[in-house]
């Protein structure tokens, strides 16, 4: 049992269908209440889709799993209204140190980029994240979580997916229009449906230990290549909440997992690393192997795969839960439009297209990190060690050191949903880009741009002075919200004021948003419900906005 954390036990209630024998029919089911399944449910609920979640267990993630949640995941959690507890409890770190053998080769200070609500990442044990998400889901109407409900079979018909569910009190059947599969890396449902997942296993084993240490140990990330206390391998140390530190020891492929897991083996390793006099207690120890792989398509008819069920990466660079939440970010609004008959079924294929593109980028980055950290040949190791040697004195060497690249969201530049730029723009907010945040003021209150948009399409109109917007522009903006797929207009202006006609208005007091979006008076951005740029122009033309919305929803 953990010394710093007590696992909640969520209540199982016998489903009414067991007694009634009736077959329940619901619009959407999510299988799996891990971070990604919970994210899917919270996203669908924001789209006003009632959700049934089925999970075979009745508690949160056990043991040492996710640690680092990166900025984009935090922003998505903000949209799900669980960003605050995660960031309040989580630990922020800025200083990273890299050691090679017995020397520190360099350190870096990741000062969070100014004028973003969320930092590059926070560290937090996965069970806290899940606990906060469950808490939010429980307080949300139209999300029904059924614990101890295990899906044992899935059949897909033309209009219906039928599930057989096992509970402590027997079996029942439930039907749904749409199934979201978030049942984790082993994905029983993927197996039931006979679907493949392809990629590779890294021939290496890692000892993952969570230890509780005295409070004076710094909140920094330390990475060792070939340290004296663990020759030939790598070691990573970083801090989580409650003074729990995560330590990853690379063990090599030949290590015996049962043997290595024993406290009498683990404790001396950690002592050698920390120095003998530091007190610590073991919280949790496990041995992992890692793989990088993904399904060919994340969509199979009415069944959508999200999170680890669809793709897995090695944990260097923390892309598992982070990218899983980006899956749910991408899926919710598309499912809603298709359910409502406002977009063709093909929109759901773009869920798979966009997220397999992102998964490939994640797999590429974590494979690169893994190859650097655990070189597979003599030549590769020589290059790695040469880079580490050069890093001490030369900036180019430091740039090549790859001990895990911070998880960042994919720029969906290849997406068929983007409308290509016709006007000239500088900067990174290209069509397909995940939006950059910026400080804004609304009704005199400080806030953040990302909190003002999302869940539906927005037209973000940049203006110098909201008070003097001409009638034609105001009418054009207002009319955007009357389409079959409404676009909410939002004016962002340098000067304070009010837009005539009741169009909402935020201020960009220091011009940070204008600068990040390379905006001038009259610039318009069409923003997707998942806070990605769909299109942008130097001047508002309602016909072009309409066409871009059609394109972004496969209605073109």
């Amino acid at each position, binding site marked *: 049992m953990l010394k710093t954390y007590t696992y909640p036990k969520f209540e199982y209630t016998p489903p009414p269908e067991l007694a009634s024998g009736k077959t329940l029919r619901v619009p959407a089911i999510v299988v799996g209440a891990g971070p990604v399944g919970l994210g899917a449910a919270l996203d669908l609920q924001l789209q006003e889709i009632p959700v049934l979640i089925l999970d075979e267990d009745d508690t949160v993630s056990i043991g040492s799993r996710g640690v680092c949640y990166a900025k984009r995941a935090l922003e998505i959690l903000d949209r799900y209204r669980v960003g605050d507890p995660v960031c309040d409890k989580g630990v922020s770190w800025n200083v990273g140190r890299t050691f090679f053998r017995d020397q520190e080769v360099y350190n870096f200070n990741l000062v969070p980029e100014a004028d973003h609500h969320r930092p590059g990442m926070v560290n937090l044990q996965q069970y806290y994240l899940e606990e906060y998400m469950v808490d939010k889901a429980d307080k949300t109407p139209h999300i029904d979580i059924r614990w101890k409900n295990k899906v044992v079979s899935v059949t897909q018909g033309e209009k219906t997916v039928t599930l057989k569910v096992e509970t402590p009190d027997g079996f029942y059947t439930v039907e749904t229009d749409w199934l979201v599969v978030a049942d984790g890396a082993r994905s029983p449902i993927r197996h039931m449906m006979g679907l493949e997942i392809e990629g590779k296993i890294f021939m290496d084993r890692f000892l993952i230990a969570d230890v509780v240490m005295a409070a004076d140990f710094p909140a920094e990330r330390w990475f060792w290549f070939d340290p004296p206390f663990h020759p030939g391998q790598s070691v990573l140390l970083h801090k989580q909440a409650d003074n729990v530190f995560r330590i990853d020891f690379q063990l090599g492929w030949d290590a015996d997992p049962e043997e290595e897991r024993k406290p009498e083996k683990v404790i001396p390793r950690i002592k050698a690393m920390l120095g003998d006099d530091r007190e610590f207690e073991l919280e949790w120890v496990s041995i992992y192997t890692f793989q990088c792989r993904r399904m060919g398509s994340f969509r199979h008819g009415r069944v959508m795969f999200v999170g680890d069920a669809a793709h897995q990466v090695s944990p260097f660079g923390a892309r598992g839960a982070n990218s899983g939440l980006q899956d749910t970010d991408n899926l919710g609004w598309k499912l809603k439009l298709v359910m409502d008959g406002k977009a063709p079924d093909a929109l759901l294929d773009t869920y798979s297209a966009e997220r397999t593109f992102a998964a490939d980028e994640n797999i590429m*980055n974590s494979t*690169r990190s893994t190859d*650097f950290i655990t070189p597979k040949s003599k030549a590769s190791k020589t290059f790695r060690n040469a880079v580490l040697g050069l890093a001490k004195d030369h*900036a180019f060497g430091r740039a090549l050191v790859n001990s895990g*690249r911070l998880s960042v969201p994919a720029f969906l530049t290849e997406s068929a949903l983007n409308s290509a730029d016709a006007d000239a723009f500088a900067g990174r907010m290209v069509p397909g880009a995940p939006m950059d945040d910026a400080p804004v003021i609304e009704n005199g209150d400080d806030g953040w741009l990302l909190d003002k948009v999302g869940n539906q399409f927005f037209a973000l109109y940049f203006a110098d002075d909201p008070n003097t917007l001409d009638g034609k522009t105001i009418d054009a903006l207002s009319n955007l919200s009357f389409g079959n797929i409404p676009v909410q207009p939002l004016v962002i202006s340098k000067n304070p004021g009010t837009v005539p006609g009741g169009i909402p208005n935020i201020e960009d007091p220091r011009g940070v948003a204008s600068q990040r979006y390379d905006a001038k008076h009259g610039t318009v951005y069409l923003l997707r419900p998942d806070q990605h740029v769909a299109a942008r122009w130097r001047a508002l033309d309602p016909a072009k906005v309409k066409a871009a919305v059609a394109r972004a929803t496969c209605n073109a």
Partner: protein
Amino acid sequence: MTPLNLEPNFREAGKRYFNAYTPGDDFYESLINTHRDLSDEQSELLNARLILILANHIGDIGVLREALTIAREGV
């Protein structure tokens, strides 16, 4: 004469980068891939050929001498 550049300097024509680490990682991956399935001896030969090709491309012997010195210092 351009001095020896020891700042991060990788890039590829026609590519747009959203993360500073990407071009260096692109290069490093190609480098390691080029060695795939070679014996240690073959890898050594490959490295030697590569150095000669790149040295000729740089051409400026002043720059090369500087690089040679720095490379030697750390060995």
